[in-house]
């Protein structure tokens, strides 16, 4: 144990922002020489994410329908450049492929940035921090295994805001932070989990997401307009639309795709423009946090009360750094004990025995108590996501299961009868969209499906997305 403490201090005693490979086992940094090469933090990251390029790129574990999104965009744009551009360049102007090209580049770049960027994940609390918080809350002295509701109230700009305790990440969530059960991470300024981009949308990638949907609206509308013009020009002189379609079959495909997508994408852009202008997140809007539905006089404490300033602060503000330090090296003791470190503890776990015991016992008992209840109420059996459901129950005093089944069930109907008519509209339109038609058209909104069920068919997400493909969480 003394050895352990010595090792635990040394790397942390160097308060340098650039981590170095651990010095203890480390007169050889070589991977070949020593069986235990220094591991990077992304390799033991506890959330459900996938990492590529040695930690430079990250995605949610389920990529959702990102391949479909990419395929649709590439196919439509490809057909546009092949079938429509030559004709339009000849008959109209050569600006058309240029504009199309610029929009296409914007769309693809911002889509990839949204998908591959850390949305603002908060690293989980270290055992010491968690123990410190537990000490502050649990002042009864005895360990009660059923977690009591844990909330903390703060006053932000004269508005009372409740901070909830996250049982998975073992910390009080900062304001506007939510835990995404699909990715099993707390995300700052959580907007929603978007299956179309295969990632959460949060503080760090909201601007990319917004630019993506706005440029996609322009691209879709542009292609739609060009294809219509193209077919109209071909059909001139009494030759008819059928003739035009026969000459340019690709245009028919584009027409169908664009016609069905443009409404939902435009609706989504409009909705998010509203959110940006009022400095709201989709999550807050759906839950009606600041709309005063509870009858109290509540206003959004984060809004600067000026549309222009709100837009600037959300879209053009300083780019916050990634807090999870994916490519940093682990301290050597963690790489020596991959079993326990990988699953439960965050990468910089310090091996304080007492803390680990408290965490381990409480965690085990929490998951043991809650998972059978969850598997009954929510049709999904993964124990990791089961842990996040207590966050729903934690706000309520009595036992978790009835609350869970109602809260899980209530999520979607509440969402579908949400406040924003445009949102509801968008969702209704999207049900008829071609994308939904590719999957089983499914009245997903009427089915109280658990928000923590990543394995349900993507049609739920497809039907749900436009403006609502989030899992509105906690």
């Amino acid at each position: 144990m003394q050895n352990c403490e010595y090792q635990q201090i040394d790397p942390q005693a160097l308060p340098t922002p650039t981590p170095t490979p651990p010095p203890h086992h480390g007169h050889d940094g070589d991977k070949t020489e020593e069986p235990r090469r220094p591991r990077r933090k992304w390799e033991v990251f506890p959330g459900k994410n996938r990492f590529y390029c040695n930690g430079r790129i990250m995605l949610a574990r389920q990529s959702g329908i990102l391949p479909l999104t990419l395929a649709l965009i590439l196919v439509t744009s490809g057909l546009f450049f092949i079938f429509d551009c030559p004709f339009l360049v000849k008959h109209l102007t050569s600006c058309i492929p240029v504009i199309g090209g610029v929009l296409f580049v914007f769309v693809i770049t911002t889509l990839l940035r949204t998908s591959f960027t850390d949305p603002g994940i908060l690293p989980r609390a270290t055992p010491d921090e968690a123990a410190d918080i537990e000490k502050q809350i649990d002042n009864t002295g005895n360990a009660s295994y059923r977690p009591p509701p844990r909330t903390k109230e703060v006053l932000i700009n004269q508005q009372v805001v409740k901070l909830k305790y996250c049982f998975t990440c073992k910390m009080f969530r900062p304001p506007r932070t939510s835990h995404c059960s699909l990715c099993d991470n707390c995300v700052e300024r959580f907007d929603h989990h978007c299956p179309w981009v295969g990632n959460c949308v949060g503080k760090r990638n909201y601007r990319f997401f917004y630019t993506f949907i706005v440029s996609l609206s322009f691209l879709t509308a542009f292609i739609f307009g060009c294809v219509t013009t193209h077919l109209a020009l071909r059909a001139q002189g009494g030759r008819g639309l059928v003739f035009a379609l026969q000459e340019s079959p690709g245009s028919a495909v584009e027409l169908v795709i664009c016609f069905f997508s443009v409404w939902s994408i435009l609706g989504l852009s409009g909705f998010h423009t509203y959110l940006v202008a009022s400095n709201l997140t989709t999550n807050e809007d759906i839950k009606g946090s600041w709309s005063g539905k509870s009858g109290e006089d509540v206003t959004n404490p984060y809004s600067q009360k000026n549309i222009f300033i709100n837009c600037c602060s959300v879209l053009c503000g300083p780019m916050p750094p990634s807090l999870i330090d994916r490519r940093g090296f682990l301290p050597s003791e963690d790489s020596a004990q991959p079993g326990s470190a990988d699953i439960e503890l965050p990468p910089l776990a310090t091996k304080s025995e007492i803390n680990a015991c408290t965490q381990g016992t409480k965690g085990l008992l929490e998951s043991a108590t809650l998972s059978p209840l969850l598997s009954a109420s929510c049709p999904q059996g993964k124990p990791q996501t089961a842990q996040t459901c207590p966050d729903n129950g934690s706000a309520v005093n009595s036992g978790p299961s009835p609350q869970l089944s109602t809260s899980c069930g209530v999520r979607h109907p509440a969402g579908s009868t949400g406040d924003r008519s445009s949102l509801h509209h968008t969702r209704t339109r999207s049900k008829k969209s071609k994308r939904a038609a590719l999957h089983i058209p499914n009245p997903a909104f009427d089915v109280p499906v658990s928000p923590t069920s990543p394995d349900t068919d993507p049609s739920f997400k497809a039907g749900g997305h436009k403006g609502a493909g989030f899992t509105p969480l906690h």
Partner: protein
Amino acid sequence: MLAYTHSLQDLQQPTVSSKVFVQRDYSSGTICKFQTKFPSELESRIDKQQFEETVQTLNNLYAEAEKLGGKSYLEGCLACLTAYTIFLCMETHYEKVLKKIGRFIKDQNEKIYAPRGLLLTDPIERGLRVVEITIFEDRSIGSGR
């Protein structure tokens, strides 16, 4: 590091007696700001005023990083126009200030905290949630474990 060297000379292993966590202060919103309340565990080790000054300077540095001003808007607009590709090659203003904060913390540790057997951990290593202060056992009175 003074404490480290000292411990090597004496006992060959520094012992941590406890850690204190300075939590975030959310009264002004989601900006990064830490509470300046003086933790009771540090009373015997350091001046209240010194501690408050350190935390206040940290808060000011984070405010500078997150400031919405002409420069950050320019950076944001330029990034938008280039479809955010410039973030791949350019260091953002925030990152520059974070480096400055790293140097400040190192400096504070060397000059003020280490001689008193304390160690500040850069909040970025804790996800900007807390300022972790490690209290080393006072070797003048205690014995090793």
